[in-house]
């Protein structure tokens, strides 16, 4: 009697697990198919568009990658985008960390209103200010990579929210102990807080890099109207798709470009996830 009951319980558990796994597998398929298609299409040797009616290439080849680097300006755009993203990442990480620390630790007048204002401003879609931004940059002759860097870095401080939340979890008594030990605010930040904030620094770097890396709207506005030399990958690749002739001819090349574009992000994540260790604050204070 006892045994039977036990067995039936196990059977029910298995059934529910089977259902859950089926649903999860279906969802991940839906999510993975586009990536899979792009990788497969980029390896297609024959010239045929998206509407060719089959998936697996008749001829496997790296031709599209070679075309991409030799016949198009892709490398130049890639360089532009990488430059913009890296510089923005550096600026944004520094600004976000410092803003968050200040908002987390210092108490000053208008602190709460300022935080709310930044949160509300951040809710407005960025394109509302597009026209104004364009005219300002145009008048300063910054409709190029520098303009992009400015635009992306300008509102960095508004990203403080998650980072401040993390700093809030680091006990204040650590700061206080260090200040009594003889540290200035500056020393506390660099010697105590930053070493403890690795996960959130990684997070900030990743988000700061990814946003400009794939951004299209502002880059098309600021660099998309001028010389092709200033394009970013998003702008350049969209131009291929815009043109009906190029769209067919360049489609496999486009897919190859897409694969190349995904490399830095993947690499960045793999490199940084080593530091994504949990429990860095373990043992500092009684938990």
């Amino acid at each position, binding site marked *: 009697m006892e045994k039977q009951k036990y067995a039936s319980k196990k059977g029910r558990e298995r059934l529910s697990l089977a259902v859950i796994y089926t649903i999860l597998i279906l969802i991940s398929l839906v999510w993975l198919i586009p990536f899979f298609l792009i990788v497969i299409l980029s390896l297609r040797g024959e010239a045929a568009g998206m509407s060719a009616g089959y998936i697996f290439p008749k001829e496997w080849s790296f031709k599209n990658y070679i075309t991409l680097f030799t016949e198009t300006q892709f490398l130049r755009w890639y360089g532009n985008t990488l430059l913009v993203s890296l510089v923005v990442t550096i600026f944004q990480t520094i600004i976000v960390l410092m803003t968050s620390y200040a908002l987390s630790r210092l108490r000053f007048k208008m602190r709460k209103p300022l935080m709310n204002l930044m949160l509300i401003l951040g809710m407005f879609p960025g394109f509302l200010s597009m026209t104004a931004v364009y005219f300002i940059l145009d008048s300063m002759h910054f409709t190029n990579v520098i303009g992009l860097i400015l635009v992306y870095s300008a509102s960095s401080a508004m990203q403080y929210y998650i980072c401040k939340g993390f700093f809030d979890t680091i006990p204040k008594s650590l700061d206080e102990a260090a200040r009594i030990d003889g*540290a200035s605010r500056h020393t506390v930040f660099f010697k105590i807080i930053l070493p403890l904030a690795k996960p959130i620094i990684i997070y900030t770097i990743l988000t700061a890099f990814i946003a400009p890396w794939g951004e299209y709207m502002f880059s098309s506005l600021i660099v998309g109207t001028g010389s092709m030399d200033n394009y970013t990958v998003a702008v350049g690749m969209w131009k291929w798709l815009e043109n009906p002739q190029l769209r067919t001819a360049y489609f496999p090349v486009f897919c190859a470009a897409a694969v190349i574009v995904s490399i830095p992000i993947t690499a960045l994540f793999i490199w940084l996830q080593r530091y994504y260790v949990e429990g860095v604050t373990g043992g500092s*204070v*009684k938990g």
Partner: protein
Amino acid sequence: MANVSLKHIYKVYPNGTKAVNDFNMEIQDKEFIVFVGPSGCGKSTTLRMIAGLEDISAGELKIGDLIVNDMEPKDRDIAMVFQNYALYPHMTVYENIAFGLRLRKLPKDEIHNKVLEAAEILGITEYLNKKPKEMSGGQRQRVALGRAIVREPKVMLLDEPLSNLDAKLRTQMRAEISKLHAKLQTTFIYVTHDQVEAMTMGTRIVVMKNGFVQQIDTPKNLYNYPANKFVAGFIGTPQMNFFEGTLLKKGDNVVIKFDNSEAEITVPYSMLYKAKPAYLDGNAKVYIGLRPEDATIAADGGNAVIKVKVSHKEELGSETLIYGDINLEGDGYGEGSTRIIIKDTGDRELNGGDIIDVALNLNRVHLFDKETEQSVLPRIPEYNYLDCEVKGGKLKFLGAELDLPEAAKCGDLKGELLLPTDAITFNGNLKAEVVSCEKIGGVNLLALTLNGKRLYAVSPECVEAKTVNIGVDFKKITVISGGEKVIAPMPEVNEFACKFVKKKAVEEVEENGKTKKKKVIRFGFAVGDNFFEASEENSQKIFAALGIKKAFTAGLKMECGAYDLTVSDEGIAASVIETLDYGVEKFLKCKVGEGTVYVKCDGEIKGDIHLLPDFEKVGIVETERDIKII
């Protein structure tokens, strides 16, 4: 290795909450001071103000000879141990201890030696290469202590350092911290909510509640002479028993009557000499406090015996706590005013519901006012309450007779004399016998008998002689007759409304041999139309307490005693109402604006005069929040 002096320290939050109220204390070098009180009483806030982690709203904080109000924590030469250890988790134990020394740029060898020495003292040498997370709570707290002692600070601040440890470890660390104090010979300030820690470790204890200091004294004195019901209940486990009741004086005895009970105990009046007579009328409600060890189970009846119904008991091994109720209808479980806890060392068979005789050791009874909860038997009574008679300009009390001075003359009457203990001078011509001289705090309390009746006096020096000549300072006495104050004491403090102002002036300054006109800004206090320049130090105190903007708008009150004002040609305008002649001294009663002011004077002066305050001695109080700034 320094004194710490706190003068009129306040902590007021922007929303107006006062976390710490007028904290005054002189901490001597090498003392072990414990701040104790329930949570939210302001003890940690005070400690954090000493550390510099919290701004001081008003008051003066000195460490050694330096005023450190505006000094950064790192420059105060203090070290602090936190409740949650606050170790740097990414550093090893060695680096944690060395961190402060490295920031101070000490040579490497020296740092190494000091870290090893500190680790040796605390027994953590073998953990030096470990990270905090690999260690247990007790070890971590040791590291935190090491980090503090390695810097050899002037003052060690400890904020509930043992609260996160388990009971056994706590006892062990308690002893170690005491040992550390003895070894380091440094001033320790220790915050805890645990009265056992306070009692076992402190040389002096500060009991706090709701931001107010309740009592500052040695552990023994706190236990034996609690100043109010809160201190009495807070110090000592199990808690002191409190009963409600009344006192009635019958001849040379006083009858203590317990509410909600038949119990009545008679004690000799000599035990209650210090009590205000108003408490002995049989109506005024008091709390009768008695510690559990001062109640014993009586074998046979006696004088101070009451009946108690036992409810339950707690066996603690060496002793048994017997819970009962002096109300024979009560149950003894609730913490009411009839419950009694008896500490009994004997081995007795007792069951719930048994009625037993309990003898109370009334020599150790504590009495508190029911409303104010202040002790009815203060160690230093404020007044002697005496019957008196005035006849033909002579004051008669306790069989003695003194001429009333001009200023305190009144018609013939019979009434009550409130003779402050500090109003008894030692240069009069009344002969009193000295019964005892007790040193309490910085003063000596003399118990005297004058014509066989008890009289208390305070004196700065201990009197060894058997008899002493005493007199009365008439400006401090009060005589009440028929419910009216016939003779009132002269107020000790004069108050003037004032403002803090800035004044622009053009001054001639000599520079490079040339006389130049230069604009200068002077800060000072405006009383009426008068401007008194404030010293640099005072201006800074005002700015520190009120901020730049509020300093000039806040309403202030200037306080100064009658001796701190001088009659002069300039200053605050006043008109003399009358001259008060107290025989030895003369004072002027003057009108300033709406108020009345008393000034010491030598001769007879009439009409309009001007008064100059002595700014070395005046106090400045902000009226809105009632904060003493200077």
